[in-house]
């Protein structure tokens, strides 16, 4: 353990906070928890939890990078980096063929484009409008009384007959969805339509930046197979997954930990 190179990435997002350890070039323990109104404390808690899970002490950790919305509040980090770079570089490291990274977060969606050398060449974010983010799905799921975790399952159930939702704005879609439920439109069709609507918005962002394969999806919403399915239809590509089935929600933290490792090694300290 003493000769291990351990680095940490702490991703304080607006909805969830994540911490991950990168140990000798492999993913170590990680945690995902809700963000709070006290990001400093949350950062510390995540970090301490993840070290504990690894059976380590803080002194074993060589370098720490903070990222995410609350990155400036990760007081104990050595440096911080934008979540855009964290997702981008993290994804590239884990999947060297990745060129387009779609991060569908709780509150915003980002698309990152890497050039042939793996360097970030462009990015675009949608952070003003909920339609096209995780929040949109949460909102609708709640209004029809289902758990966000069940969306993928519902999407896959029954036949594939997505209903086309006409409202663009999440404020209006709620009543549209409730009307559909009352009209006894099958729930799976509604969910399929919902995923289609989000995928359309995300695809528009991707088009803005230009799609180059391979495409990966990161962020919590990437775990929703129904949405990923719709995204694949819209983009007419197969989305690649990360090897070892790494949870896409922790890509920000993992990316930060990898960047920490790269930075540490570059500095040449032992």
């Amino acid at each position: 353990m003493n000769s291990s190179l351990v680095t940490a990435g702490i991703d304080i997002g607006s909805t969830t906070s994540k911490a991950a350890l990168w140990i000798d070039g492999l993913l170590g323990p990680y945690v995902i928890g809700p963000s709070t109104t006290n990001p400093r404390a949350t950062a510390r808690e995540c970090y301490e939890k993840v070290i504990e899970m690894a059976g380590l002490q803080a002194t074993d950790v060589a370098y720490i990078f903070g990222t995410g919305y609350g990155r400036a509040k990760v007081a104990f980090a050595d440096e911080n980096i934008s979540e855009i770079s964290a997702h981008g570089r993290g994804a590239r490291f884990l999947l060297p063929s990745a060129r387009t990274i779609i991060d569908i977060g709780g509150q915003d969606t980002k698309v990152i484009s890497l050039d042939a050398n793996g360097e970030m060449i462009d990015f675009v974010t949608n952070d003003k409008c909920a339609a096209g983010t995780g929040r949109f799905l949460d909102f609708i799921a709640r209004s029809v009384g289902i758990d966000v975790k069940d969306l993928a399952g519902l999407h896959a159930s029954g036949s594939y007959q997505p209903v086309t939702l006409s409202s663009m704005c999440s404020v209006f879609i709620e009543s549209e969805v409730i009307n559909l439920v009352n009209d006894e439109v099958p729930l799976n069709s509604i969910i399929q339509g919902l995923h289609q609507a989000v995928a359309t918005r995300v695809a528009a962002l991707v088009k803005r930046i230009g799609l180059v394969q391979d495409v990966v999806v990161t962020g919590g919403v990437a775990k929703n197979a129904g949405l990923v399915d719709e995204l694949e239809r819209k983009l007419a590509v197969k989305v690649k997954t990360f090897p070892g089935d790494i949870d896409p929600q922790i890509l920000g933290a993992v990316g930060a930990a990898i960047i920490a490792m790269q930075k540490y090694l570059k500095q040449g300290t032992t």
Partner: protein
Amino acid sequence: MGNKDVMDIFRNVITQPGNAYLDEWVASGKKVVGYYCSYIPEEIFSAAGLLPYRLRGAGSVDSSDGDAYMSARVCTFVRHTISLALRGELDFLDGVVLAQNCDHIRRAADIFKKKIKLPFYSFLSIPRIPKERLFDWYLEELKRLKAEVEAHYKVTVSGERLEEAIALHNATRQRVSSLYELRKKQAPPVTGEEALTITVAAHLMPRDTYNMLMDELLAGLATAGGVTKYRARVIITGGELDNPEYIAGIEQQGALSVAEAVCFGQRSFGGPVEDGAGDPLERIARHRFFQAPCARMVECFDEQIIALKDTMKEFQADGIIFQRMKFCDPWAGDGHNLYWRMRKEGIPFLGLEREYGVAASGQVGTRVQAFLEMIGK
């Protein structure tokens, strides 16, 4: 007075709609006339003994008065300026000279005319295409403005008075140029936030006083230290920007603004109005009409690109940060076109959207930081 004292004065002058200099001017019986745009020459006001005051929304915490008249679907800059006017916070104004800069300002003009009803109101029709074939019309419009000013204020805007005004405003241009020259250094003596504070202040106070303060400032800056801690040098461009706090939010990430190619920034000044034998009003008209064009103008995009690239080179900038007020159509067009041109030419370019008076948010910070990371700085 040291440069820090002058900066404090400028900071004070720009926080609220009014300031002590305006109060003094008005108390001495003189008049203040408001305007929105660089295509309206300040020299005409100065030559008539009027103080040109460039309209902005600083000090407006809430745009609801403007919203009531203009809805929430138009530019927040305009809504805030109208809110101030409707609330009586621009009562030091004796008049306004407006133009069809854009649809939002055009409607603001209607509100000025019908609701705010200042003693003096004039409206110019400024051509959209800054080419010789339309210059005569622009000059005629300025002559008409001059005549209206003379009739209303019972003054003669003679050739001599125009020459004096040219000299006065050239003196400001020269000082702002000097300031910008200093920013070409590796360690510029001012940040973008400070520079915008300085250039905004010029529009809100008597020019001779401003010029004197600038002299003190420049003297101080000549020997002051510079900004060394930054990750990259950027040019800020795009639509109207008179909130230095917005630039501060960008600079906090390490992107040092070395030139603000925006209204209230460099665009408001340009080089000097030519000396010479020609009619002063015509020289002023040429100076304005053929200035570096903004998004409102058409058939001149190449000139805009060249100006931007020249600025980048002169100031050794690493990239361009473009900002646009939400709902702004002219800058939406230019924003789109700039993005693709810059991409083609490999010039790092970041596009931001904003609302007036809102400090650069965490979201802007993230984008700027990512931009810097992307360009390897």
